[in-house]
Structures are given as C-alpha cells and as structure tokens.
C-alpha cells in the first residue's frame, strides 16, 4: 500500500483527536453511575455562620454551663496546667481587647468574657496548614480534619487568638466520662472549636448556644433577619484584633 505524507498527517490528527476525547468519555461514564452520597434534609445552611456574645447576660454560671456543654459533648479533657485543651474558655476583657481598651475602663477591664475560635473570614491557620487538615467550609466554618493533622502546630503559630490547643498527652487519660457520639483526639493532634459543625448538619444549634440561656446568639451573617444581624444592628459590638484583617466572626455585644 502506498502511503503519502498527507495521509500520514491526516491519520495522526485523527489519532490525537481520539486520544483527547477518550479519557473524557471514560470520565463521563464514571460520573453517570449512581450517586451514593447525600446531604441530610434537615441540614442547616448559611453563607457565613457567626456568633454574637451578649456580654450583659454573661454570668459565671452561664459561662460555666456553656463550657460544660461544649466540653462534655466533644470529649475535651480538663488538664490542670498550661497544656490544657481549650475549645471555649473564660478570658477577661483586658486580654481579649487589649488594643481597644483604655485606662478609664477600670470596671470593664477585669470582666470575664467567653472566648472561642473566631472562624475568621480570612483564616491564617488555613493558609499555613501544610496538609490542609484545617480548611474552611463553604458555610464559613473553619473546620479541622483530625485524621489529617500531623501535629506540626503551624496553625497554632498562625492563629492570633490562641484558639488552638495541642494534645501533649492522650486525652483519654484525663477524661472520666466519654461521649461515644464524638471521637476523642490522640496525642500529637491540634484541636479547636468547630462551631458544632456536626450539630448544624443535623439541624441543631451549637451546644454552647443551647446552654447559654440567650447569652450567645448564632446565625447566618448574610441573612439580614438573623438573630446575629439584628443584635449587631441594635447594639455596639467589638471583635478581637480587627486590625489584623482576619475578619473574626465572633462579635461581642458591649
């Protein structure tokens, strides 16, 4: 058979076209298969979840109730040292807002407030995490995938709010009661508040909000009729370290 250069080029062209189409067809065939993963119907959705802390309603009793609700639900151990694990904790005003305080705020400076992860709009912890164990969900929650955490603690260095804790020990040594609904962590894993993402997915509010007797408000920041937005319209509020540009989503109503 006589083969011309023209014929060879034409065949090469067809072959290249075939090779470029075939993988995409194979991919389409796989995608056309049954979809097996679904989201629950009662799952709450938002563009950006946010919390407002009504500091006028915060009493020691309420704060302790919130902390207890959070820590028992998530199996957070209580370790009596600087290696304690913190998801939700008490911090005085002067530590939270040292850059927004002044000497005449003497009555305010020592007032205890609740502190937690700010679920920033522009979270530094997500940027520095080398394994993408910390990531931001589409609904604005900065979540941790404990399975992926390698314990490098870059996120702890990145977080300007001290919201992350490192497990220096096996936390089960310090837990008297385990809640089987939520896993514990292991030694060498970083952890933090997750805005109860697993509860939102089941249609429930975060545990601390439910226990707070109205001192904590939770809602979608992009929804102008939500509890949080209404409170922010009516009251003066502060966020922690606004100058850093992380965009915290925990507001303190003063």
């Amino acid at each position: 058979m006589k083969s011309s250069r023209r014929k060879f080029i034409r065949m090469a062209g067809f072959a290249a076209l075939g090779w470029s189409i075939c993988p995409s067809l194979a991919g389409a065939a796989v995608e056309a298969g049954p979809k097996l993963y679904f989201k629950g119907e009662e799952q709450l959705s938002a563009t950006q979840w946010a919390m407002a802390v009504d500091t006028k309603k915060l009493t020691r009793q309420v704060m302790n109730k919130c902390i207890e609700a959070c820590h028992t639900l998530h199996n957070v151990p209580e370790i009596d040292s600087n290696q304690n694990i913190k998801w939700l904790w008490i911090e005085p005003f002067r530590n939270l807002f040292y850059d927004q305080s002044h000497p005449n705020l003497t009555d305010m400076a020592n007032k205890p407030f609740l502190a937690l992860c700010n679920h920033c709009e522009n979270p530094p912890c997500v940027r520095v995490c080398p394994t993408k164990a910390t990531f931001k969900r589409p609904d604005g929650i900065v979540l941790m995938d404990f399975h992926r955490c390698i314990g490098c603690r870059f996120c702890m260095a990145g977080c300007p709010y001290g919201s992350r804790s490192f497990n220096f020990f096996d936390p089960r040594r310090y837990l008297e009661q385990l809640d089987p609904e939520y896993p514990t962590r292991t030694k060498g894993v970083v952890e933090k508040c997750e805005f109860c993402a697993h509860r939102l997915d089941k249609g429930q509010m975060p545990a601390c909000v439910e226990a707070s007797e109205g001192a904590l408000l939770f809602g979608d920041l992009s929804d102008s009729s939500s509890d949080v937005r209404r409170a922010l319209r009516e009251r003066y509020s502060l966020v922690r370290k606004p100058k850093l540009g992380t965009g915290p989503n925990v507001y303190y109503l003063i």
Partner: protein
Amino acid sequence: MYHANKIIPGLVIFGLLMTFPFWFNIGSAAYSTPELVLPEDHEFCVESVEYMRAEHMSMLNEWRDAYVRDGYGEYQSMLTGQMYPMSLTKTCMNCHNNKEEFCDRCHASVSVDPYCWDCHIEPQGVE
C-alpha cells in the same frame, strides 16, 4: 560448565532459602478464616457481604472524607437503596456492637492494626 563446583552448590542453597517458608510450615495447621459473631437482628450490612468483606476499609476512608470535608451525611446503599448515616460509631458499630468478636478477630488473624479506635470510641459490647 565452568566453575560448576561453585555454581551448583550456590543454586542448591538459593533454592533451599527461597522455598524456606514452604517446607518450614509443612505439618502446621492451615490458615482458617476466623469465626465472627454477626449481628442477629440484621440480615445484611449496608452492602452485600462480599462487597463489605473486600471493600469496607476503602469505603470507610471515603466516608470519612465525604463526611468531614464535603459535608455529606447520608449514604445510599447500592444493595437496597436505603439511606444510612455515614458514621462509624452510629451506623457500623450500632449493629456490630462488639468490636472484639467482630473487628478484632479478622484484624488480629491477618496482623492488621487499624488506628480508628485511637480516637473513635468503641462500643461497650452487648450487655
């Protein structure tokens, strides 16, 4: 053959070493599949037994990523079309509620040591 006095003993030694596992184990009991305690009140798992036996580890890996990272909470069974929550402790361990008599027997027999239970809390077994 050149150097036959070295090559042939060398080949014999090589053959003996290579087949060591076979003749060392002659006479010892054959491997038998461990007997598992299956849940009594359930006929099938989320998928068929053969599928679960072969794929449960990759299925659990995919579930964990789908649940934690992408927010998918429900799994539809290819076998029955029924929906199941994607949860190790709530779905799997709800039926297989005795880790020692189900998970551990196979894992111990094939020397696999999954680290699931370092974090996830094992059920307390049937009372």
